Protein backbone atom coordinates (compact mmCIF):
# COMPACT_ATOMS: atom_id res chain seq x y z
CA UNK A 1 0.00 0.00 0.00
CA UNK A 2 1.21 3.49 -0.81
CA UNK A 3 2.45 5.86 1.78
CA UNK A 4 -0.06 8.35 3.13
CA UNK A 5 0.87 12.00 2.78
CA UNK A 6 -0.05 14.45 5.52
CA UNK A 7 -1.79 17.75 4.85
CA UNK A 8 0.58 19.94 2.88
CA UNK A 9 0.18 23.22 4.74
CA UNK A 10 1.39 23.63 8.26
CA UNK A 11 -1.55 25.88 9.13
CA UNK A 12 -4.02 23.28 7.94
CA UNK A 13 -2.28 20.58 9.99
CA UNK A 14 -2.40 22.69 13.10
CA UNK A 15 -6.02 23.60 12.56
CA UNK A 16 -7.05 19.95 12.25
CA UNK A 17 -5.04 19.02 15.31
CA UNK A 18 -6.53 21.84 17.38
CA UNK A 19 -10.00 20.95 16.21
CA UNK A 20 -9.89 17.20 16.49
CA UNK A 21 -6.87 15.81 18.28
CA UNK A 22 -7.28 18.25 21.17
CA UNK A 23 -11.08 18.12 21.20
CA UNK A 24 -11.72 16.51 24.56
CA UNK A 25 -14.76 14.50 23.58
CA UNK A 26 -12.76 12.71 20.87
CA UNK A 27 -10.49 11.28 23.61
CA UNK A 28 -7.45 10.79 21.38
CA UNK A 29 -5.30 9.72 24.29
CA UNK A 30 -7.14 6.39 24.03
CA UNK A 31 -5.88 5.72 20.51
CA UNK A 32 -2.67 7.69 19.99
CA UNK A 33 0.89 7.15 21.16
CA UNK A 34 0.60 10.00 23.68
CA UNK A 35 -0.31 9.07 27.22
CA UNK A 36 -3.24 10.82 28.83
CA UNK A 37 -0.80 12.84 30.93
CA UNK A 38 1.18 13.95 27.86
CA UNK A 39 -2.02 14.80 26.02
CA UNK A 40 -3.37 16.72 29.03
CA UNK A 41 -0.17 18.68 29.40
CA UNK A 42 -0.22 19.80 25.75
CA UNK A 43 -3.97 20.42 25.93
CA UNK A 44 -3.36 22.67 28.94
CA UNK A 45 -0.74 24.70 27.02
CA UNK A 46 -3.10 25.19 24.09
CA UNK A 47 -6.09 25.98 26.25
CA UNK A 48 -4.14 28.57 28.26
CA UNK A 49 -2.97 30.21 25.02
CA UNK A 50 -6.54 30.41 23.70
CA UNK A 51 -5.74 28.15 20.76
CA UNK A 52 -8.70 25.87 21.40
CA UNK A 53 -11.30 28.63 21.33
CA UNK A 54 -13.26 28.81 18.08
CA UNK A 55 -10.99 30.56 15.61
CA UNK A 56 -8.36 31.05 18.30
CA UNK A 57 -5.74 28.70 16.94
CA UNK A 58 -4.68 30.99 14.12
CA UNK A 59 -3.78 34.03 16.21
CA UNK A 60 -1.35 32.50 18.66
CA UNK A 61 0.00 29.36 17.08
CA UNK A 62 3.43 30.85 16.42
CA UNK A 63 4.35 30.95 20.10
CA UNK A 64 7.08 28.30 20.57
CA UNK A 65 5.35 26.23 23.31
CA UNK A 66 2.13 26.30 21.33
CA UNK A 67 3.87 25.28 18.11
CA UNK A 68 5.62 22.44 19.90
CA UNK A 69 2.37 21.17 21.43
CA UNK A 70 0.64 21.38 18.05
CA UNK A 71 3.55 19.62 16.37
CA UNK A 72 3.55 16.79 18.91
CA UNK A 73 -0.22 16.56 18.52
CA UNK A 74 0.10 16.41 14.75
CA UNK A 75 2.67 13.64 14.90
CA UNK A 76 0.42 11.51 17.11
CA UNK A 77 -2.74 12.37 15.19
CA UNK A 78 -1.15 11.60 11.83
CA UNK A 79 0.35 8.33 13.09
CA UNK A 80 -3.09 7.18 14.24
CA UNK A 81 -4.61 8.25 10.90
CA UNK A 82 -1.86 6.43 9.01
CA UNK A 83 -2.58 3.30 11.01
CA UNK A 84 -6.28 3.57 10.15
CA UNK A 85 -5.34 3.97 6.47
CA UNK A 86 -3.08 0.91 6.46
CA UNK A 87 -5.00 -1.45 8.72
CA UNK A 88 -8.54 -0.11 9.00
CA UNK A 89 -11.60 -1.13 7.08
CA UNK A 90 -12.04 0.91 3.89
CA UNK A 91 -15.32 2.36 2.69
CA UNK A 92 -16.18 4.34 -0.38
CA UNK A 93 -19.11 6.40 -1.50
CA UNK A 94 -20.33 6.48 -5.06
CA UNK A 95 -20.56 10.25 -4.88
CA UNK A 96 -16.94 11.00 -4.07
CA UNK A 97 -13.47 9.74 -4.88
CA UNK A 98 -12.45 10.13 -1.28
CA UNK A 99 -12.19 6.99 0.81
CA UNK A 100 -12.96 6.42 4.45
CA UNK A 101 -10.91 4.19 6.70
CA UNK A 102 -12.17 3.14 10.11
CA UNK A 103 -9.27 2.14 12.29
CA UNK A 104 -8.66 1.01 15.84
CA UNK A 105 -10.77 2.79 18.41
CA UNK A 106 -12.96 4.35 15.74
CA UNK A 107 -10.35 6.63 14.14
CA UNK A 108 -11.99 7.75 10.91
CA UNK A 109 -9.42 8.80 8.31
CA UNK A 110 -10.67 10.52 5.16
CA UNK A 111 -8.23 10.09 2.28
CA UNK A 112 -8.09 11.71 -1.17
CA UNK A 113 -6.62 10.00 -4.24
CA UNK A 114 -6.25 6.73 -2.35
CA UNK A 115 -4.94 4.70 -5.31
CA UNK A 116 -2.43 7.10 -6.82
CA UNK A 117 -1.09 9.51 -4.29
CA UNK A 118 -3.02 9.08 -1.05
CA UNK A 119 -3.36 12.29 0.91
CA UNK A 120 -4.96 12.69 4.30
CA UNK A 121 -7.92 15.06 4.22
CA UNK A 122 -8.87 14.74 7.86
CA UNK A 123 -9.10 12.29 10.72
CA UNK A 124 -11.47 12.36 13.64
CA UNK A 125 -13.25 10.14 16.14
CA UNK A 126 -17.02 10.33 15.77
CA UNK A 127 -18.70 10.58 19.15
CA UNK A 128 -20.83 7.63 20.23
CA UNK A 129 -24.18 8.25 21.95
CA UNK A 130 -23.04 7.22 25.37
CA UNK A 131 -22.97 8.97 28.73
CA UNK A 132 -19.99 11.15 29.46
CA UNK A 133 -18.61 11.41 32.97
CA UNK A 134 -17.16 14.79 33.73
CA UNK A 135 -14.10 14.47 35.92
CA UNK A 136 -12.67 17.10 38.19
CA UNK A 137 -9.48 17.58 36.24
CA UNK A 138 -9.13 21.33 36.19
CA UNK A 139 -6.31 21.32 33.66
CA UNK A 140 -8.29 19.61 30.94
CA UNK A 141 -11.91 19.39 32.07
CA UNK A 142 -11.68 16.00 30.42
CA UNK A 143 -14.33 13.36 30.26
CA UNK A 144 -13.71 9.84 31.29
CA UNK A 145 -15.72 7.00 29.96
CA UNK A 146 -15.71 3.34 30.75
CA UNK A 147 -16.21 2.81 27.07
CA UNK A 148 -15.50 -0.22 25.02
CA UNK A 149 -13.51 0.74 21.92
CA UNK A 150 -16.34 -0.98 20.05
CA UNK A 151 -18.69 1.95 20.69
CA UNK A 152 -16.29 4.34 18.94
CA UNK A 153 -15.78 1.96 16.03
CA UNK A 154 -19.52 1.47 15.61
CA UNK A 155 -20.08 5.23 15.72
CA UNK A 156 -17.42 5.76 13.03
CA UNK A 157 -18.92 3.12 10.76
CA UNK A 158 -22.40 4.60 11.18
CA UNK A 159 -21.12 8.09 10.33
CA UNK A 160 -19.65 6.76 7.10
CA UNK A 161 -22.64 4.63 6.15
CA UNK A 162 -25.18 7.30 7.04
CA UNK A 163 -23.33 9.68 4.78
CA UNK A 164 -21.81 12.09 7.23
CA UNK A 165 -18.41 12.47 5.68
CA UNK A 166 -18.97 12.94 1.98
Amino acid at each position, binding site marked *: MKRLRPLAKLDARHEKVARHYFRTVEAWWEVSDQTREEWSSDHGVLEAAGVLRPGGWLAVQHLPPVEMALERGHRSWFTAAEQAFHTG*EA*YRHEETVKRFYVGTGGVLAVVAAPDDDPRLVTAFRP*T*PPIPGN*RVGDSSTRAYLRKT*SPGAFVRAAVRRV*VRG*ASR
Partner: protein
Amino acid sequence: MRTTRIEEAELLEAQLVEALAETRRAEGHAFEVVALAGLRERFAGEPAALAAVDDWLDADGTVLLAEELAHLELDRRIDELVGLPDDAHEERVDGTFTIDELSAGLTFCGNQARIAPFIELLGRAIRATPAPWCALSPLASRILESAPPLDDDPAGGLWRTIESTPWIQDSLAPGGKLPVVPGFTVGSPLSVQRLAMEAPRAVAQAASRLPSEHAEMTISLGEAADLTYARAEGRGELFLEVRQATERVTAQCDGRPVALARLRPTSWSCPAEPGLYVFHIDGHPHVVEVG
Protein backbone atom coordinates in the same frame (compact mmCIF):
# COMPACT_ATOMS: atom_id res chain seq x y z
CA MET B 1 -13.44 -2.85 0.46
CA ARG B 2 -16.98 -2.19 1.56
CA THR B 3 -19.11 0.37 -0.11
CA THR B 4 -21.56 2.48 1.78
CA ARG B 5 -24.38 0.83 -0.07
CA ILE B 6 -24.48 -1.56 2.85
CA GLU B 7 -28.03 -1.62 3.99
CA GLU B 8 -28.22 0.74 6.90
CA ALA B 9 -30.90 -1.34 8.61
CA GLU B 10 -28.69 -4.41 8.33
CA LEU B 11 -25.73 -2.53 9.78
CA LEU B 12 -27.79 -1.26 12.70
CA GLU B 13 -29.02 -4.77 13.47
CA ALA B 14 -25.46 -6.11 13.48
CA GLN B 15 -24.27 -3.26 15.69
CA LEU B 16 -27.24 -3.75 18.00
CA VAL B 17 -26.40 -7.41 18.53
CA GLU B 18 -22.78 -6.47 19.21
CA ALA B 19 -23.60 -3.64 21.64
CA LEU B 20 -26.17 -5.74 23.50
CA ALA B 21 -23.64 -8.54 23.95
CA GLU B 22 -21.07 -6.05 25.28
CA THR B 23 -23.58 -4.58 27.69
CA ARG B 24 -24.53 -8.03 28.95
CA ARG B 25 -20.81 -8.61 29.62
CA ALA B 26 -20.73 -5.22 31.45
CA GLU B 27 -18.36 -3.89 28.78
CA GLY B 28 -20.69 -1.50 27.04
CA HIS B 29 -23.32 1.13 27.62
CA ALA B 30 -27.01 0.49 27.99
CA PHE B 31 -27.78 3.75 26.23
CA GLU B 32 -25.90 2.74 23.10
CA VAL B 33 -28.19 -0.28 22.89
CA VAL B 34 -31.37 1.80 22.98
CA ALA B 35 -29.87 4.36 20.59
CA LEU B 36 -29.19 1.63 18.06
CA ALA B 37 -32.63 0.14 18.65
CA GLY B 38 -34.18 3.58 18.12
CA LEU B 39 -32.29 4.06 14.87
CA ARG B 40 -33.26 0.57 13.66
CA GLU B 41 -36.88 1.22 14.57
CA ARG B 42 -36.95 3.95 11.92
CA PHE B 43 -36.81 1.24 9.26
CA ALA B 44 -39.54 -1.23 8.37
CA GLY B 45 -39.68 -4.70 9.88
CA GLU B 46 -39.32 -6.13 13.33
CA PRO B 47 -36.04 -8.00 13.51
CA ALA B 48 -35.18 -10.42 16.28
CA ALA B 49 -32.57 -7.97 17.57
CA LEU B 50 -35.30 -5.52 18.58
CA ALA B 51 -37.20 -8.25 20.40
CA ALA B 52 -33.96 -9.12 22.21
CA VAL B 53 -33.65 -5.50 23.36
CA ASP B 54 -37.21 -5.62 24.74
CA ASP B 55 -36.36 -8.81 26.65
CA TRP B 56 -33.18 -7.22 28.00
CA LEU B 57 -35.09 -4.12 29.12
CA ASP B 58 -37.63 -6.34 30.88
CA ALA B 59 -34.78 -8.07 32.69
CA ASP B 60 -31.93 -5.86 33.93
CA GLY B 61 -31.64 -3.35 31.08
CA THR B 62 -34.03 -0.80 32.53
CA VAL B 63 -32.00 -0.44 35.72
CA LEU B 64 -28.74 -0.01 33.80
CA LEU B 65 -30.40 2.49 31.52
CA ALA B 66 -31.82 4.54 34.40
CA GLU B 67 -28.32 4.94 35.81
CA GLU B 68 -27.02 6.27 32.50
CA LEU B 69 -29.87 8.62 31.61
CA ALA B 70 -28.73 11.15 34.20
CA HIS B 71 -25.30 11.41 32.58
CA LEU B 72 -26.14 12.06 28.95
CA GLU B 73 -25.00 15.69 29.28
CA LEU B 74 -27.53 16.92 26.77
CA ASP B 75 -26.90 20.56 27.74
CA ARG B 76 -23.15 20.25 27.22
CA ARG B 77 -23.59 18.55 23.85
CA ILE B 78 -26.05 21.16 22.60
CA ASP B 79 -23.82 23.97 23.91
CA GLU B 80 -20.86 22.60 22.01
CA LEU B 81 -22.85 22.20 18.82
CA VAL B 82 -24.36 25.69 18.93
CA GLY B 83 -21.00 27.26 19.78
CA LEU B 84 -19.09 25.81 16.81
CA PRO B 85 -17.41 28.25 14.43
CA ASP B 86 -19.06 28.58 11.04
CA ASP B 87 -16.51 26.49 9.19
CA ALA B 88 -16.44 23.55 11.65
CA HIS B 89 -18.31 21.34 9.22
CA GLU B 90 -17.03 17.98 10.47
CA GLU B 91 -17.74 18.78 14.09
CA ARG B 92 -21.19 20.10 13.19
CA VAL B 93 -22.08 16.92 11.31
CA ASP B 94 -20.71 14.73 14.08
CA GLY B 95 -22.52 16.68 16.79
CA THR B 96 -25.79 16.60 14.86
CA PHE B 97 -25.56 12.84 14.38
CA THR B 98 -24.88 12.40 18.08
CA ILE B 99 -27.96 14.45 18.97
CA ASP B 100 -29.96 12.45 16.43
CA GLU B 101 -28.80 9.17 17.96
CA LEU B 102 -29.49 10.38 21.50
CA SER B 103 -32.97 11.43 20.42
CA ALA B 104 -33.60 8.06 18.76
CA GLY B 105 -32.52 6.25 21.94
CA LEU B 106 -34.53 8.44 24.28
CA THR B 107 -37.60 8.03 22.06
CA PHE B 108 -37.15 4.26 22.00
CA CYS B 109 -37.26 4.13 25.80
CA GLY B 110 -40.07 6.67 26.11
CA ASN B 111 -37.89 9.48 27.44
CA GLN B 112 -38.00 11.85 24.49
CA ALA B 113 -39.27 14.64 26.74
CA ARG B 114 -35.74 14.84 28.17
CA ILE B 115 -34.24 15.95 24.89
CA ALA B 116 -37.18 17.81 23.32
CA PRO B 117 -36.45 21.22 24.95
CA PHE B 118 -32.78 21.01 23.99
CA ILE B 119 -33.64 20.20 20.40
CA GLU B 120 -36.15 23.05 20.41
CA LEU B 121 -33.41 25.43 21.56
CA LEU B 122 -31.03 24.05 18.96
CA GLY B 123 -33.68 24.51 16.27
CA ARG B 124 -34.13 28.13 17.25
CA ALA B 125 -30.38 28.69 17.18
CA ILE B 126 -30.22 27.15 13.70
CA ARG B 127 -33.07 29.33 12.46
CA ALA B 128 -31.34 32.38 13.93
CA THR B 129 -28.03 31.61 12.21
CA PRO B 130 -28.80 29.25 9.32
CA ALA B 131 -25.76 29.87 7.11
CA PRO B 132 -23.35 27.32 8.64
CA TRP B 133 -26.08 24.68 8.53
CA CYS B 134 -26.92 25.01 4.83
CA ALA B 135 -24.26 22.46 3.92
CA LEU B 136 -26.12 19.84 5.96
CA SER B 137 -29.41 20.39 4.14
CA PRO B 138 -28.87 17.64 1.51
CA LEU B 139 -27.87 15.21 4.27
CA ALA B 140 -31.04 16.08 6.18
CA SER B 141 -33.10 15.47 3.02
CA ARG B 142 -31.52 12.05 2.57
CA ILE B 143 -32.23 11.08 6.16
CA LEU B 144 -35.81 12.31 6.05
CA GLU B 145 -36.33 10.38 2.83
CA SER B 146 -34.58 7.13 3.68
CA ALA B 147 -35.14 6.64 7.41
CA PRO B 148 -37.14 9.46 8.95
CA PRO B 149 -37.37 9.69 12.73
CA LEU B 150 -40.64 8.38 14.19
CA ASP B 151 -43.45 10.89 14.68
CA ASP B 152 -42.76 11.33 18.39
CA ASP B 153 -38.98 11.57 17.97
CA PRO B 154 -37.86 15.22 18.39
CA ALA B 155 -35.02 14.58 15.92
CA GLY B 156 -37.57 14.75 13.10
CA GLY B 157 -38.08 18.46 13.72
CA LEU B 158 -34.34 18.98 13.94
CA TRP B 159 -33.68 17.39 10.55
CA ARG B 160 -36.58 19.29 8.98
CA THR B 161 -35.16 22.56 10.30
CA ILE B 162 -31.72 21.69 8.96
CA GLU B 163 -33.21 20.70 5.60
CA SER B 164 -34.89 24.09 5.34
CA THR B 165 -31.83 26.20 6.19
CA PRO B 166 -31.06 27.27 2.58
CA TRP B 167 -34.56 28.72 2.36
CA ILE B 168 -34.33 30.31 5.80
CA GLN B 169 -31.00 31.79 4.74
CA ASP B 170 -32.63 32.94 1.54
CA SER B 171 -35.27 34.82 3.49
CA LEU B 172 -32.59 36.50 5.63
CA ALA B 173 -30.27 37.52 2.81
CA PRO B 174 -30.57 41.07 1.45
CA GLY B 175 -32.91 41.22 -1.52
CA GLY B 176 -34.19 37.75 -0.73
CA LYS B 177 -31.42 36.06 -2.69
CA LEU B 178 -28.89 33.55 -1.57
CA PRO B 179 -25.37 34.89 -1.56
CA VAL B 180 -23.37 33.57 -4.47
CA VAL B 181 -21.35 30.55 -3.50
CA PRO B 182 -19.36 28.72 -6.16
CA GLY B 183 -20.56 25.18 -6.59
CA PHE B 184 -23.61 25.54 -4.41
CA THR B 185 -26.92 24.29 -5.63
CA VAL B 186 -29.81 23.89 -3.31
CA GLY B 187 -30.57 20.21 -2.96
CA SER B 188 -27.25 18.99 -4.28
CA PRO B 189 -25.04 16.79 -2.14
CA LEU B 190 -22.17 19.28 -2.39
CA SER B 191 -20.78 20.67 0.78
CA VAL B 192 -20.68 24.41 1.24
CA GLN B 193 -18.01 25.24 3.73
CA ARG B 194 -18.96 28.85 4.05
CA LEU B 195 -21.58 31.10 2.60
CA ALA B 196 -20.55 34.57 1.56
CA MET B 197 -22.82 36.23 4.07
CA GLU B 198 -21.28 36.48 7.52
CA ALA B 199 -23.48 34.76 10.06
CA PRO B 200 -23.11 35.09 13.80
CA ARG B 201 -21.62 32.27 15.78
CA ALA B 202 -23.45 31.30 18.87
CA VAL B 203 -21.68 30.48 22.09
CA ALA B 204 -24.19 28.55 24.06
CA GLN B 205 -22.04 28.56 27.18
CA ALA B 206 -23.22 32.12 27.38
CA ALA B 207 -26.77 31.22 26.47
CA SER B 208 -29.19 32.32 29.11
CA ARG B 209 -32.86 32.89 29.31
CA LEU B 210 -34.38 36.19 30.30
CA PRO B 211 -38.01 35.84 31.35
CA SER B 212 -39.90 38.76 29.89
CA GLU B 213 -42.23 39.06 32.88
CA HIS B 214 -39.43 40.35 35.12
CA ALA B 215 -39.41 44.12 35.72
CA GLU B 216 -35.61 44.16 35.73
CA MET B 217 -33.02 41.47 35.56
CA THR B 218 -29.28 41.44 34.84
CA ILE B 219 -27.23 38.54 33.59
CA SER B 220 -23.54 38.26 32.89
CA LEU B 221 -22.27 37.54 29.37
CA GLY B 222 -19.09 35.91 30.60
CA GLU B 223 -16.24 38.34 31.13
CA ALA B 224 -17.34 40.55 28.26
CA ALA B 225 -20.46 42.33 29.43
CA ASP B 226 -23.62 42.48 31.49
CA LEU B 227 -27.04 42.47 29.93
CA THR B 228 -30.00 43.99 31.71
CA TYR B 229 -33.59 43.46 30.79
CA ALA B 230 -35.87 46.22 32.02
CA ARG B 231 -39.59 46.62 31.55
CA ALA B 232 -41.46 49.86 31.96
CA GLU B 233 -44.81 51.12 30.68
CA GLY B 234 -45.46 47.84 28.96
CA ARG B 235 -42.25 47.95 26.91
CA GLY B 236 -39.15 45.85 27.39
CA GLU B 237 -35.65 47.17 26.79
CA LEU B 238 -32.25 45.48 26.77
CA PHE B 239 -29.20 47.35 28.08
CA LEU B 240 -25.78 46.03 27.21
CA GLU B 241 -22.84 47.20 29.30
CA VAL B 242 -19.43 46.01 28.06
CA ARG B 243 -16.51 45.80 30.47
CA GLN B 244 -13.92 47.10 28.02
CA ALA B 245 -14.61 49.90 25.56
CA THR B 246 -15.02 48.63 22.04
CA GLU B 247 -16.54 49.72 18.76
CA ARG B 248 -17.28 46.16 17.74
CA VAL B 249 -20.75 45.46 19.09
CA THR B 250 -23.62 44.18 16.98
CA ALA B 251 -26.84 42.33 17.70
CA GLN B 252 -29.29 40.09 15.91
CA CYS B 253 -32.64 38.75 16.97
CA ASP B 254 -33.81 35.51 15.36
CA GLY B 255 -31.27 36.14 12.65
CA ARG B 256 -32.33 39.69 11.87
CA PRO B 257 -30.09 42.69 12.62
CA VAL B 258 -31.10 44.76 15.62
CA ALA B 259 -30.40 48.51 15.74
CA LEU B 260 -28.42 49.28 18.89
CA ALA B 261 -28.62 52.77 20.36
CA ARG B 262 -25.33 53.82 21.92
CA LEU B 263 -25.91 55.41 25.32
CA ARG B 264 -22.33 55.71 26.55
CA PRO B 265 -18.94 54.51 25.24
CA THR B 266 -19.55 51.18 26.96
CA SER B 267 -23.32 50.79 26.81
CA TRP B 268 -26.00 50.20 24.23
CA SER B 269 -29.73 49.54 24.29
CA CYS B 270 -32.39 48.08 22.06
CA PRO B 271 -36.05 47.13 22.37
CA ALA B 272 -36.56 43.66 23.82
CA GLU B 273 -38.83 41.33 21.90
CA PRO B 274 -39.26 37.63 22.49
CA GLY B 275 -36.59 35.84 20.49
CA LEU B 276 -33.07 34.52 20.34
CA TYR B 277 -30.57 37.36 20.52
CA VAL B 278 -26.97 37.04 19.43
CA PHE B 279 -24.71 39.84 20.64
CA HIS B 280 -21.31 40.01 18.97
CA ILE B 281 -18.79 41.75 21.21
CA ASP B 282 -15.29 42.05 19.79
CA GLY B 283 -16.00 39.15 17.51
CA HIS B 284 -17.28 36.84 20.23
CA PRO B 285 -20.93 35.80 20.11
CA HIS B 286 -23.19 35.68 23.17
CA VAL B 287 -26.63 34.16 22.95
CA VAL B 288 -29.54 35.25 25.08
CA GLU B 289 -33.08 34.07 24.74
CA VAL B 290 -35.77 36.56 25.65
CA GLY B 291 -39.16 35.04 26.09
